[in-house]
């Protein structure tokens, strides 16, 4: 077992984990933050996307021990004081979800893409969301949600 310490959604957390513990399993099982989903578990679907030191990553393809000392944000950490993050609000307003399974990963990727591309074109949004799969195929409204949110986020 290895002791791992990191900041998750602003809180300092520490636990003893086996080195082969995935970051997503640490988040879901140790911290009980189950908003981060495991879809394919093979680094393709992006449902497990979280931010590590501000960058979107697939938490099924990172070990918990690799996040030692890191600042991690999950979908639960986006809303502030009970107010939805503009990206969350935009997905709600624009019907950017159908079954909702891919939504946490979509939103975490979308927040990172708007940070890197403040006023993204539809083409940019679609190419930057390559790493997230919606099995309901609800992409059209997802793209619409991200575009609307980017305008509110000061893009």
């Amino acid at each position: 077992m290895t002791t791992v310490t990191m900041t998750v959604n602003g809180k300092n957390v520490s636990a003893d984990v086996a080195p082969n513990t995935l970051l997503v399993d640490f988040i879901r099982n140790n911290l009980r933050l189950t908003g981060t989903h495991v879809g394919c578990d093979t680094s393709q679907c992006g449902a497990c996307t979280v931010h590590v030191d501000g960058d979107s990553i697939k938490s099924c393809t990172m070990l918990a021990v690799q996040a030692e000392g890191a600042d991690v944000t999950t979908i639960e950490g986006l809303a502030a004081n009970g107010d939805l993050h503009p990206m969350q609000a935009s997905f709600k307003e624009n019907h950017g979800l159908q079954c909702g399974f891919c939504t946490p990963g979509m939103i975490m990727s979308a927040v990172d893409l708007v940070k890197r591309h403040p006023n993204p074109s539809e083409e940019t949004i679609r190419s930057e969301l390559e790493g997230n799969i919606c099995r309901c195929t609800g992409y059209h409204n997802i793209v619409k949600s991200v575009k609307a949110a980017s305008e509110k986020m000061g893009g």
Partner: protein
Amino acid sequence: MYSFDYERPSGVNDAAASLGEDDKVLAGGQTLLPTLKLRLAQAGKLVDLSGIDELKGISSNGSELSIGAMTRHVDVADSAEVRSAIPALADLASHIGDAQVRNRGTIGGSVANNDPAADYPSALVALGATVHTNKRSISAEDFFVDLFETALEEDEIITKISFPVPESAAYAKFPNPASRYALVGVFVAKTSGGVRVAVTGAGPCVFRQSDMEAALSSDFSSSAISGISTDASGLNSDIHASAEYRANLVSVMAGRAVDAAS
């Protein structure tokens, strides 16, 4: 995943010294971790290079661009120095995998893995890059040996890759629509020593297309190579594309790369 031990040393020599026969080097982990999860590989210990600062960073002196082994794809894609010295390399990095993979995956990890469909090997071979390790310097052509095989020894770790700055260069790839790996990718570089054309995705390992190089060295235009075909024997044939289809793609992608570099 099978269980393994984990170490994160702070120096290259410490990392090399702690590598045992059954151990594996962990860079960005975007190939190694999925491979371990599928139990296609097993490691006694993972030696994580992320704590070694000397392996990160990009520098340029005008004639040579140097990229540390642990530099992520996103950092290469966004680097003002890379965009200025070899924009084709930044472009290549910006189309590897997806955004999340580019935020973790590294140039050293990609090069050491030598996946036959990876993008970077074509850039290294076409640009005449040098792979620097904790032990020696290896030319890219000597480095990439065969399918998933490189010249690296068991306890040898890539420290940086250096690229001579070409007169012009471009990369064109036909990506697998699901994985974004290159079904075929062609990197064309016009250098002071002539034109070099390197092909990835088509064969078991990156290779140079010498007929195209000769034609382009006398006339750097896509029309100069329009009649040159690539022998399909020995090329990859799988559910994604036949060898003949890949051979044709080599010509198409090479033409596009030349047009983009002209």
